[in-house]
């Protein structure tokens, strides 16, 4: 099963233009650049936590008689889990996703995603973040839809229990604790069985300490495990399969991402049940 999921994900990876076009056409409620300074200040005071319950009904799939055909048909669908309704630019801005680090800390791989520098602090280009976020959510949904295992990772102690609770509540897996070297690459000896790997690793922060990349990022890329990662301006985006440029430090932003992932996972599970592909 794992191999088939990986195949499906890689397929989705090879045709991402589909998703990004979709997101570009998406109606943006406002643009960051048009906001006045006072509006920015106001939006910083009230962090939001996104909770979506109702899922829009997707356009019906072409009739498919086998399970395999149904799975393929969902890949052709432009937005099967309704991820474009989950977040808009205003939400990202309110959740302070655009706030990066001091310009001196900038990682070269992040420069294409940076909008500019304000008072020495890098601002992330939310126009780029939104489609990438939608793509990451879409991939997550498809992996879950195929019964894949998700692993949520974060080393941010401030939100650690929340990340773990998210994973537990949606019936997936979490690893927010110190990473023992070889958890993926030396799994058979550490676990004492044939290795089991998650089908998708979701990093809500790709750094272990402020200086080091999370070992899980490196081990996942060594084993070709696809990764979704929130990358701040000081992070290395290269080893991440689906990078989402955004703030990975403030609780408001992290709770925002968690809300999105919770919604998409629950939606995908509901759809999996409804379509009878379990």
């Amino acid at each position, binding site marked *: 099963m794992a191999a088939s999921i990986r195949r499906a994900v890689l397929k989705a990876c090879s045709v991402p233009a589909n998703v990004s076009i979709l997101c570009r056409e998406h109606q943006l409620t406002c643009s960051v650049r048009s906001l006045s300074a006072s509006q920015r200040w106001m939006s910083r005071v009230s962090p939001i936590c996104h909770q979506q319950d109702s899922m829009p009904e997707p356009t019906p799939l072409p009739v498919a008689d086998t399970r*395999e055909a149904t799975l393929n048909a969902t890949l052709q669908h432009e937005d099967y889990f309704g991820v474009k309704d989950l977040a808009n630019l205003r939400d990202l801005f309110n959740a302070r996703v655009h706030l990066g680090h001091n310009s001196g800390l900038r990682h070269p791989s992040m420069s294409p995603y940076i909008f500019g520098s304000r008072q020495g602090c890098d601002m992330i280009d939310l126009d780029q973040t939104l489609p990438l976020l939608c793509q990451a959510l879409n991939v997550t949904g498809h992996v879950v839809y195929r019964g894949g295992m998700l692993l949520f990772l974060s080393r941010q102690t401030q939100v650690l229990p929340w990340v773990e609770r998210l994973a537990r509540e949606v019936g997936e897996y979490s690893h927010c604790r110190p990473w023992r070297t070889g958890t993926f690459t030396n799994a058979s000896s550490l676990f004492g069985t044939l290795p089991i790997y998650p089908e998708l690793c979701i990093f809500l922060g790709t750094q272990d300490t402020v200086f080091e990349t999370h070992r899980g990022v490196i081990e996942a890329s060594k084993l070709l495990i696809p990764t979704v990662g929130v990358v701040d301006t000081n992070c290395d985006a290269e080893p991440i399969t689906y990078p989402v440029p955004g703030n990975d430090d403030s609780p408001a932003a992290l709770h925002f991402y968690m809300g999105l992932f919770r919604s998409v996972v629950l939606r995908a599970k509901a759809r999996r049940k409804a379509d009878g592909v379990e």
Partner: protein
Amino acid sequence: MAGISPWAVKTVHKGTVSSRRLFVIFAHKRFLEFRAQNVVRLSSAPDGNDRLHIAPVTQNKPTAKAVTISKAMRAYMEQARAYDDKMKSEVADFEIGKRHLANIMGEDPDSFTQEDVDRAIEYLLPSGLYDKKARPVMKDPYEIFPKKKAAQFGLDGRPYHWMYFTILPNYYSALYEITWKLEALKDLEDQMRAENRQDEMEGQSFNTASSEWVSLQALKTKMVENIKEKEYKHFVTLMERLASHPLSAREKDFIMEWRVLLQSEELQSAVPEVEVEEGGRMCATASGTRKSSNAIVKVYMPGSGKFNINGKDLTYFSQNLYRETLLLPLVVSGLLGKVDAEVDVELGGPTGQAGAIRLGLSRALLAFVEEDVKEKMRLTGLLTKDPRKRERKKPGQQGARRKFTWKKR
């Protein structure tokens, strides 16, 4: 392309970002497996970026509806079967060996118990090895071979535990639970403070006096995981934080799961019996020792505080320090002037005798006090025997530690 591995892929977003290397180890089994299932082709797109095309090769194969058993589970089941077979033959060998042993010892093989086996082994194979673990043993194979862990994942290959990938799922989920309990208490505290109900928080803290945290070894056994010293310390720190919260008594049951009661067994056995004498007076007898002195103390209840030490009253000891030593158990238990004591003490000097009487008196008083007073006496140290003895003189020295005077010239 020069210098870049052929398995480098350019990012597809807006065609601007640098190459993203896949950290591929060519010889890796997983990668070979991946290559076997997919056609991987590299091409140049018109925009100057390289594209990696991956397509499955298994399209023509008849697809099974669902994979019923994952590879990991199949491997586990094979291991488990091998283990069971091994244990079965070991158990059979053990049973036969036990019968042989019984015959050698001239006893009935059918009623030969494990105790008999141990005795026979000790008799037939006497060993002078100091460490008991190094001596020959013959035990049930299930006690000797390490236990096989139950499968951690289901037939579909999905682990049962949501923290499976942390390697120590039980340990880390315990930490998770502690964290959320602490968060709940903090919220409650905030709420109570906001409503000005601080006075209700009095006495809501958990009392840690009569118990201690489980040891590292016990924690390992309880979690069935190989927990290290550092992780144990982290666990205790977190638990301390929960236990020291002003409202921690609400989580008493949870906290006590991870604590062990102190020394209750010894205390139970040490309580002397109460005898009723003529005239309805109760009395209890106990003995105590300190250094080389022995004392037998008989306590009468009710009384008026009279002491009879080898036929004298408290003036048996000329110094106040020794008299105070004697009286400490009575002061702590609040029975000063309410009981009489008859003491028979021998050997040693005044310090040893006073200490011996103190211990004997404390033990005798246990017969007349409540549980909480017993605990108080234990915490004061009245029920603990002082194990110190006179240290012997060493040859070549003046005393136990003191050296002879030595002058270089």
